Each structure stands twice: as C-alpha cells, then as structure tokens.
C-alpha cells in the first residue's frame, strides 16, 4: 500500500500538483482573465468539441470493428485485429504528417473532398479526423473482450422467443456492452483533448478558427509565460476531469442497472 502510494505520488500526483500550484502566480483574477480570453475560449471550444465528436464517431466505428473481429471469421481477421493497435504505436507526429498528406488539397482524399467543396485538412474537420484516428483503438480494445464474453445462449433464447435481429441487438447485446463502449469513449476523449502531435500538422492553427488548446499552451511557453500556460493546462484538466467523472458515473449506473 505504502509503495503503491509512493509510486502514484511520484508519477502522477506530484506533477499534477505542480500544475495546480503554478497558475496562481497570476492571482485569481489573472487566471480568470487568461481562461476567459476569447482566444482561449475558442481554443477550448475546438479542443473539447472536436474531441467529443471524434469520441462519438469512435464509438460507432469502434463497435463495428470490434463486432467484425469478434463475431465473424473471415480471411485477414487476425491481421485486422493487429492493425487496430497501430495508431497506438505510431509516433503522433508521423500520424499527423501522414493524415495531412492524404487530406491536403493535393492529397488523394483531400482532392476528392475539395471537388465537392469540403475543406478537410487545415480546418476544424481535419482536427476531428485526426482525433478520430488516434482514438479508435481505445473503443475497439474496450469493447472487444466484453463482446466476447456476451453469452450467445441468451441471444439464442431471445431469438426463440421471437425477437427480431434489431431487438436482439438493441435489447440484449447493447445493454451488456454499453458500459464498455462508454469506457472506451472516455479514454478516446481524454486522449483526444490533450493530443498535440498529430493535430498540429492538419489543423491549420488559425487563431479563433482552428487553434487547439494545447497549441495555446505552447504559444504561452514560447513567450516564457509559464504561469499562463499552466492556467490553460489547469483549465483543461478541470474540464476533462468533470467530463470523465460524468462518463464514469453513467457507466457505473449502467453496469448496476444491467446486473440488477
């Protein structure tokens, strides 16, 4: 217990404490002024908004991928299973450069989108694309083991009792795996909020339009404004914490309900 606590303190609590202490050099109103600056607000809106959209997209895409891996047997299934983890292994800068090359106006997909008048790279949409990419494995890996555990006999029973395919999925399977989906979404969201490397290449970084909150932190550091940077970091930490806490509560409630 003591060892665990010491390690936890060294690795997690002390750095976080430093982040919590630093901003107050500016004073309460200084921190408030930093966080309510319209550029910071715009960056928060983009970072958290894009992370939420990306996590929601990951929920759908991740469920489909996990479903395919668990429920179907097809050639290349093991390969697909291994590919899922690649976004984890790839340095985020590499992911960012690759995505930008593909979605830039002269890239294969970017050119396609440009023809129908949609700007992908260098716009908020590009941010969502990058965040969806890096978040996908979290949902797949959270859902996959739970889906494997779902009792097929219960589904069979539902079928013999006359349930349609839709009813089986929505009333039987989904309630069982929903907590896992939410867990994965929470992880994808948390990762996406703080993501810098992969986003910075594709975002365009225009103030008030496509500037993410982590970039604002870098900008403040670049001006040797350590306290201001820490204030933005603290703001992100608080919002993330509240969002993850809410997600956790829903997850716990769902788990209890499905057991009870």
């Amino acid at each position, binding site marked *: 217990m003591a060892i665990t606590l010491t390690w936890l303190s060294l690795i997690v609590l002390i750095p976080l404490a430093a982040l919590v202490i630093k901003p107050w050099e500016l004073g309460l109103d200084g921190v408030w002024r930093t966080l309510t600056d*319209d550029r910071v607000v715009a960056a928060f809106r983009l970072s958290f908004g894009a992370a939420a959209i990306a996590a929601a997209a990951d929920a759908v895409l991740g469920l489909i991928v996990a479903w395919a891996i668990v429920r179907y047997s097809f050639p290349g299934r093991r390969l697909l299973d291994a590919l899922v983890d690649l976004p984890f292994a790839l340095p985020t800068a590499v992911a960012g450069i690759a995505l930008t090359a593909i979605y830039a*106006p*002269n890239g294969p997909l970017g050119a396609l989108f440009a023809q129908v008048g949609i700007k992908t*790279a260098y716009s908020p949409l590009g941010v969502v694309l990058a965040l969806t990419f890096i978040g996908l494995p979290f949902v797949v890996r959270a859902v996959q083991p739970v889906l494997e555990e779902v009792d097929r006999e219960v589904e069979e029973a539902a079928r013999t009792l006359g349930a349609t395919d839709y009813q089986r999925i929505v009333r039987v399977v989904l309630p069982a795996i929903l907590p896992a989906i939410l867990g994965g979404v929470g992880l994808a969201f948390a990762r996406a909020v703080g993501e810098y490397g992969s986003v910075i290449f594709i975002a365009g970084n225009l103030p008030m339009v496509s500037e993410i909150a982590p970039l604002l932190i870098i900008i403040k550091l670049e*001006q040797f404004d350590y306290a201001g940077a820490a204030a933005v970091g603290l703001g992100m930490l608080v919002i993330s914490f509240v969002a993850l806490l809410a997600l956790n509560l829903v997850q716990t409630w769902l788990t209890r309900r499905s057991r009870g």
Partner: protein
Amino acid sequence: MTHDIRHLSRRGLLGGAALAGPAVLAGGGLAMAQGAPKPATLLNVSYDPTRELYKEINAAYAKFWKEKTGQTLTIQQSHGGSGKQARSVIDGLQADIVTLALAYDIDEIAQKAKLLPANWQSRLPQNSAPYTSTIVLLVRKGNPWKIRDWGDLVKPGIEVITPNPKTSGGARWNYLAAWAWALKQPGGSPAKAEAFIKELFQHVPILDTGARGSLTTFAQRGVGDVFLSWENEAFLSNEEFGPKFDIVYPSLSILAEPPVAVVDKIVDRRKTRTIAEGYLNFLYSPLAQDLTGKHHYRPRGAQAQAKYAGKFKKIPLVTIDDTFGGWTKAQKTHFADGGVFDRIYRP
C-alpha cells in the same frame, strides 16, 4: 515537421553531455596545466536552418583547434525552433554556446536565468552577428501571379504561407519586414502598417508552428502562392526540392542578424570558456565567413562578401533597432499577448 524527433535527439544530446561532463572538466584542467590535453566537448545550441552550416563549421573548428593546441574537440549541435531552444537552455540544457535566430531569445536567457550578462550583444563585433540574412518572397516557378513586392501579396486570391509569429522566430522577421515596407510607403503610418498586416494575414490560410513546417506545407502539400522565407532557406529549398521555385526580392526587407553568444555560467562551470570564445571568434575568420556564404547566409567579412557578391541581391534593409526600437519593444508591441498580432485576429 519533426517536432518529436528533434526533441528526442536533444534529450540524447543532453544525456551525452552529462556523460561527457567529468571528462571535460578533467580535460580543461589539464589543458591549463600545459600537459597533453584531454579531449573536450562543446555544445552549440542553435535554431532550425543552421544545421548544415554548423556541421561544416564544427569540423573546421575542431581541425583548427587540434592544430593550435593538440586538443581533440567533439562539438555537438542541437537544433529546433529558436524560442524552444532558448527555453531548453533556461531549463538547464548545458549549452556552451547559443547561436539563435534573434537577439530576443538570448536576452531571455540573460534575463530569466541570468546565465550571461545583459550586455552580451556588445561583446562581439557587429551586434554579435557574424552572418546575416533577410526575408524574401518565394514563389512557384515562373511566378504565375507576377508577384514583385509586398503589396502584391494582398491581391485577391493570393494565398501566403508563413509560420506563426507567436511560435517561430523566422515568422517574426517575416512580419516585421512586411510591416516595415508598409510603414515606408508614401504616406505610411503605424496605423496603415497595421491595416496592411491585418489584410496580409487574411491571405494566410495556415499558420504552422515553425519555418520548416511551413516550407513543407508550401513545397510538398502545394498550398499557397507565396512563401515568406529566410533568404538562406529559399536557396536551400531549390536545392532540396529541385528548381520548383523562384526567389523574388521585394523593394525593401529587413536585416536579420542571428546572434551568437557564450553562455558564461555554463562555460565557467565546465571550464570550456577558452574553447567556446575561440569558437565564436573563429566564426569571424575568413574560413568560416566563406562557409556562411556557401550555406546561403550573407557574410560580414569583406573577402567573403566580395566572393559571394553576385549571389545576394542588394536591396534596402531596415534594422530592428532603427525601425522597431529593438527586440524587447518589438516583442511587446507586436507579439506579446494582447499585442498587434493578437489584435488583427479579433473580429
């Protein structure tokens, strides 16, 4: 572009410097005692586009030093965005020498970490800048939009690529060059210059964090019609990407003086002051001056200037001191939070 990779390599250097530390101390001590000098290391912390230049200068200086003293030198170099590099030194990177993109970054090291005196820039000739550069306009081959000067950049439909002045030293020079041009037009005033800058940045679709990232956007992603560039990077891009671009010299630009300095506290602790000061003086030697010209920097020395006279076009250049009242003032007016650059993005 290689943000993470560079960061890693700098960590590597840090580790290397730490390991080599004791050997260096011993080496310095022995050299003073006139014995057979032990090998020494030197760390030059620089900014992005000087990589190739310092690679050659380091080799030349190591050779020069070996002949002069018999001591073997290993010179390590670290590159990254100028501001980021300055911050690393403030946070403890053991740089014997800093060679950065602008004086402001070394000022910050002097002010925040007190590692060198505030008057560092007057210790070496010519504002401690052994070579200079300027800002030019890089356009696509054949100059399809007929861009001749700063004023052409705000024509309808033109897209301009420059990094973010908040995060890139080079971008600050770009911005100030454009400002100076607008200010020096007939009837020019600070208000008119600000209006021009505001219009100019409405033509900027992407703000990368560093000059190399912007060059990738322009050269490889094919975005934009004009790239605001260091003169030396403009020459380099034609070497690197093939002759795909033309360099356009505007009617007026800015004299960029990338300064160099010995970091006093660190060289005194590591006993490398003689080697480090020798290195900076060496930068002013005819041999090193010739290398700066070869690597597309404008040399200061008369001999190298004469040799490369045909390469660098003579255009009127303003300086940071005569037009902007020095870096500290320019930084505060234009680039600090709430400064002009923030203002032009407010609706």
